[in-house]
């Protein structure tokens, strides 16, 4: 019994799974936990340090074996993370929850990139609807709450009496942002990029600053906070 818990807990805690012999029912639990990890498309993106260190390790093994006559140091080609992640970002952005695509951002649908949309573009859906995303009581002053609807993942926050809602997808490659409660900001798990709760780009290590996060309209309706989101695409 104990071992099974450990295997499931490892997935909960993002730790290595310990060796053991689980009960048959425990395998289903573990499988489901692993499956649910995929709910965050950005979660499986490798750490930059890991990608670099494995390349170094491969170079030591492969280049040493093929060119013993050469004493020249092994050249380690550093590939920009952007290139490495070109596929990953596309997948993250393709998830149903991250449909803040260009047609919704600019309304023009002419292939205009979010970067070109200017600072803090507002998402004004052609076809949208107000949906409740959080109880008003859940949002303290200065606090933030993540929400997801079938078309949008985002964060709603409150400063003073003002409500703000921003997209939860990084404007660089569409990875889903994480709420950093302690720092009061939104961190991108794919690159070292962070946004303020009002959507401003706080810092990044990319060649060009990613655009601020698009805003969504937010309002209080009774005891609920509502956000105006695009209706589901057909």
């Amino acid at each position: 019994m104990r071992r099974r818990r450990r295997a499931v807990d490892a997935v909960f805690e993002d730790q290595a799974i310990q060796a053991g012999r689980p009960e048959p029912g425990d395998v289903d639990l573990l499988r489901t936990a692993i499956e649910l990890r995929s709910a965050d498309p950005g979660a499986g993106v490798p750490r930059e340090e890991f990608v670099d260190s494995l390349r170094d390790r491969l170079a030591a093994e492969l280049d040493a074996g093929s060119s013993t006559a050469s004493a020249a140091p092994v050249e380690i080609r550093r590939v920009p993370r952007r290139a490495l992640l070109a596929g990953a970002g596309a997948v993250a952005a393709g998830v149903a929850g991250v449909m803040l695509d260009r047609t919704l951002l600019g309304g023009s649908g002419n292939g205009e990139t979010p970067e070109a949309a200017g600072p803090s573009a507002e998402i004004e859906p052609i076809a949208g609807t107000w949906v409740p995303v959080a109880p008003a009581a859940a949002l303290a002053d200065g606090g933030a709450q993540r929400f997801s609807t079938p078309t949008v993942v985002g964060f709603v926050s409150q400063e003073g009496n003002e409500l703000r809602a921003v997209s939860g997808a990084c404007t660089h490659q569409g990875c889903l942002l994480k709420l950093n409660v302690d720092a009061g900001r939104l961190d991108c798990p794919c690159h070292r990029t962070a946004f303020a709760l009002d959507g401003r780009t706080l810092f990044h290590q990319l060649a060009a600053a990613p655009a601020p996060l698009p805003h969504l309209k937010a309002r209080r309706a009774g005891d609920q906070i509502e956000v105006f989101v695009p209706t589901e695409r057909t």
Partner: protein
Amino acid sequence: MREGLMAKEDEEGGGAAPGGDVAPIRPALRAVAPAGDRYADWREVYDDNVVRIHRLMYAKVGNRPDAEDLTAEVFLAALGPLRLSVSRGEVRAYLLRTAQTVLASFWRRRLGCEVTTIDLTAAPPLEAGGPAPAPDDDGGGRSARRARRILDALPDRYRRVLELRFVEGRSVRDSAQAMGVTVANAKVLQHRALRLAASLPEEAS
């Protein structure tokens, strides 16, 4: 071992793979691909595939330390004997087959049973020279949507605790605070939620 690509397929094509459902090796693999359709060296193979393989492994083991170990194992096993005269698509297919074997061996070692497998029949087409396919055997987006469907089928509090833990990556302490419950309650809640999620009928998942 310079013929490793073929040799490895012959050795591992049916034996170690789960269920023996490995896609048959097509004789066309042996053809030499045009230069533009090939990888120049192992670094190019690595740079073009490391994110995809890591994401695939992460989706199969659900934690980063094991995903990193398995990714390293795939490249260490595959790149040494890899022959680069075949097309990019075939190299990717070879990496996937290696990943399948590495994952099967990992589960047998750790838990004695295969909790997850890589189904090569669900793999996206590997067009030679085309853009890198989705970094999952069935496409990361599809996995995420499936996970989303499971979450959406759960009662609010169960869904919320699993979202906090898995989607937002929050600690159990953080999640407890966000939900206004004790840490002990959050732990119970997350396990009950997972149990319910695991028992959902197949169509929900």
